[in-house]
């Protein structure tokens, strides 16, 4: 018996409305699924569309003038493409939690931490008010904040970056969501704090069987924490691979990302960089969008075409026409 994946994304397209006539594709063909209890890393350079994809999962595309222009996005069987306000209200913050980038505002500066937690807890309209405080302290304990009774009364500016993110995670898990969308949650935080927060996310997954989609540009981090890695380039998902197998990836872009890791190079040794820059939104080349930067490119890669999604192994795929010619 196979268990249905929690999230299914199939050939998803997300456009941004510029003017009444002009639309710009930001994501064009994203395909992957997330199983229950799985931690998926979503990795890509800036402009790859990974943040927009997160917004689609949390239903906040509209605020940026973006919208789903095609494809399928389901959560536990519910169609999120067609979902409107009331449907989202039952999902966002309750079944799908969101942890924003640490560099952004974080907790509301004019509310105490306790007040914000209470707000997240009371999203469940049936939660008894008497238990709110206890639940808030419980959440702060889960995210490993010391002296939660003190923190309850503090404001955002009194906390360190790491603590603020823990609070954001606490708010995100208040309703015991089945999926947490974490968009670069530790970017900009100290590496020791990052390690602790990642451990926290792993603990949450173990205890609550929550699925987590972790967006990052940090390949070593994603490799360490995630079960599966989805690689995005110029608006499309080009590969999905298990983190165990990352050294023999099936797409030249993934290989290039791996090879350009600084931590694996000899000190002062030859650094590999990926040629060129990722194509900017609106300037995507036809055919394979990595063709202009690829070391394995052939003529056929450049032909205008929709690249096939070639299944590899149990869960993975690649969109490279030459995937089986890459050295193992």
């Amino acid at each position, binding site marked *: 018996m196979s268990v249905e994946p929690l999230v299914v994304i199939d050939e998803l397209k997300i456009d941004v409305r510029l003017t009444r006539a002009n639309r710009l594709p930001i994501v064009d063909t994203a395909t992957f699924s997330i199983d229950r209890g799985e931690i998926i890393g979503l990795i890509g350079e800036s402009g790859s569309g990974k943040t927009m994809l997160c917004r689609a999962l949390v239903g906040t595309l509209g605020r940026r003038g973006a919208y789903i222009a095609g494809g399928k996005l389901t959560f536990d069987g519910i169609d999120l493409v067609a979902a409107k306000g009331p449907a989202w209200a039952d999902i966002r913050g309750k079944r799908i939690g969101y942890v924003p980038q640490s560099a952004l505002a974080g907790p509301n500066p004019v509310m105490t931490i306790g007040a914000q937690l209470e707000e997240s807890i009371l999203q469940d309209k049936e939660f008894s008010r008497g238990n709110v405080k206890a639940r808030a302290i419980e959440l702060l304990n889960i995210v490993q904040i010391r002296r939660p009774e003190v923190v309850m009364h503090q404001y955002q500016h009194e906390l360190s970056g790491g603590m603020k993110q823990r609070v954001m995670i606490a708010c995100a898990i208040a309703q015991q969501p089945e999926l947490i969308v974490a968009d670069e949650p530790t970017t900009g935080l100290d*590496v*020791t704090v990052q*390690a602790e927060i990642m451990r926290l996310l792993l603990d949450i997954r173990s205890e609550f069987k929550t699925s987590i989609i972790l967006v990052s540009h940090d390949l*070593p981090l994603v490799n360490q924490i995630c079960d599966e890695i989805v690689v995005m380039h110029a608006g499309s998902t080009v590969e999905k691979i298990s983190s165990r197998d990352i050294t023999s990836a099936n797409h030249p872009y993934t290989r290039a*990302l791996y090879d350009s890791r*600084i*931590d694996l190079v000899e000190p002062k040794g030859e*650094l590999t960089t990926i040629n060129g820059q990722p194509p900017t939104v609106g300037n995507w080349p036809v055919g394979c969008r990595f063709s202009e930067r690829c070391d394995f490119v052939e003529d056929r890669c450049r032909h205008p075409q929709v690249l096939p999604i070639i299944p590899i192994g149990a869960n993975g795929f690649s969109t490279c026409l030459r995937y089986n010619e890459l050295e193992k």
Partner: protein
Amino acid sequence: MNIIEAKDVSVTFESFGHEIKAVDHVDFFLPEGQTVGIVGESGSGKSTFARVLSGLQLPTNGSVTYLGNPIQVGKQTYPGKLRKDVQMVFQDPYGSLNPRMKIVKAIAEAIRQHQDLDKKSAIEAGVRLLESMGISGDDAYKYPRSLSGGQRQRASVARALSAQPRLLIADEPTSAIDQSAQSQLLGLFNNLIKDGLSIVLVSHDLSVIRYLSDYVYVMKDGVFVESGKTEEIFNNPKEEYTKKLIASIPGRKL
């Protein structure tokens, strides 16, 4: 010979009646031609210390000597001809360049400060310098806002190099730019090191420190908790804090 040395340097700030010791009685030295990394997390004082070395911050205690001579004369630092020898590259690519100046003009201004050239030749020299940093002729005439973070950082390095310094102090140069821009910038630093530039590299990014440095100082709460050759620090850390730091690198034991 040590190109720069710091002895018993402290920097104390006053804030709302509290005294904050950003840097607490540290000693430091850098042999000429080498690269030293100062690694630490936020609040460690490494940026403040970097600014003391570059003369932008006066220490409350202790002294810094450059090629054996104290850098501070009265309230000034690096007087006269010495000033050009020590340049700095900063973390934030967005704030490092004057937003109202085309970058070639900014470079040309720096060139003219230290070489006797007329405006036209300075601009030509600026274009050449930028090209050697991987910034094309067209991009040279743009304003900073039209360039990427990586390009801005390289333009900042170009500006620093216009003074033909012997020592470059880089404060988190790679922290605000993306992966590929980081690699490009590090490759650039590598070449500069081969040409004999001494570098003080301040960063919280351990992989960057490991890649470029010959010697590493680990900083926490204003003091150097450990220092040693790069290999030693990374493979055989002795202090608790250093061990914790190394263990936090993704890919090491979690």
